[in-house]
């Protein structure tokens, strides 16, 4: 087994195991904290896929910002006080069946399709390459993002503030 394969299996196990905790834990704060190792596992996968820049922002945005936002909202609404409330609805078995069916379907597709193998290699320095593409073909992505961010900022402030 090569180092890369070993790293892949370790990271996959980390991602899925903490994902399982996120999904099943009866304590909502435990779920939120378990998101962090799951995101870090995905970060490792990005590194294996030569997507260094994505790995950096995965930590910065997901582990550092979105998790903090989620923890804040938990503390602003129920804190730990709702821990004794039922966390699952009555659809447990059906939901599990649907999720399992979805997994089987996706895995079947993934293993039975002849995926194209592209030629060429990824640029060694992906950050600079992404930056150059923002100044060329993907200029609209760059500028469009700012509008998306502006709209969601305004929307979220309007929704979250108390109506006077």
């Amino acid at each position, binding site marked *: 087994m090569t180092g890369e394969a070993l790293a892949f299996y370790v990271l996959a196990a980390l991602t899925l195991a903490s994902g399982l905790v996120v999904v099943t834990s009866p304590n909502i704060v435990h779920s939120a904290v378990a998101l962090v190792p799951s995101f870090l596992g995905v970060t*490792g996968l990005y590194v294996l896929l030569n997507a260094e820049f994505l790995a950096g922002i995965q930590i*910065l*945005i997901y582990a550092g910002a979105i998790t903090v936002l989620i923890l804040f909202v938990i503390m602003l*609404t129920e804190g730990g006080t709702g821990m004794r409330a039922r966390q699952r609805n009555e659809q447990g078995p059906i939901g599990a069946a649907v999720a399992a069916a979805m997994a089987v379907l996706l895995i079947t597709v993934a293993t039975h399709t002849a995926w194209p193998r592209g030629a060429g290699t990824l640029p060694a320095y992906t950050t*600079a390459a992404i*930056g150059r593409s*923002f100044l060329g073909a993907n200029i609209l992505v760059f500028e469009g993002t700012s509008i998306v*961010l502006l709209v969601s900022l305004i929307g979220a*402030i309007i929704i979250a503030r*108390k109506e006077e």
Partner: protein
Amino acid sequence: MLLDWGYVAVFAIVGAGMVALPLLIIWLISPRSSYPQKFETYESGVPAIGQAWSQFNVRYYLFSLIFVVFDVEIIYLYPWAVAARSQGALAFYELLVFLVILTLGLVYAWRKGALEWV
């Protein structure tokens, strides 16, 4: 490049071990008592009232919300900053448009009082 990150992984794993080491030592040598008051929550010496896990002010959320939006803005600036130098004036105007749109968001939050702590 993978080697670089292999080093980082080793750093994280060995580092976690080194941080855990003193915890192992105290687990082995530290004294233990069964004096029940020691395990009470500290609230300046009087018995604690209620749980600490309760609701907090929504202001905290507003700040973290604006933070998330600006944090996403910043991740777009990293690749821009690396590539900008060689791309000439277009890069500058692109940045200007990007930042002006986002400054509108900051101004909006400011005017709406989302940046006030009341």
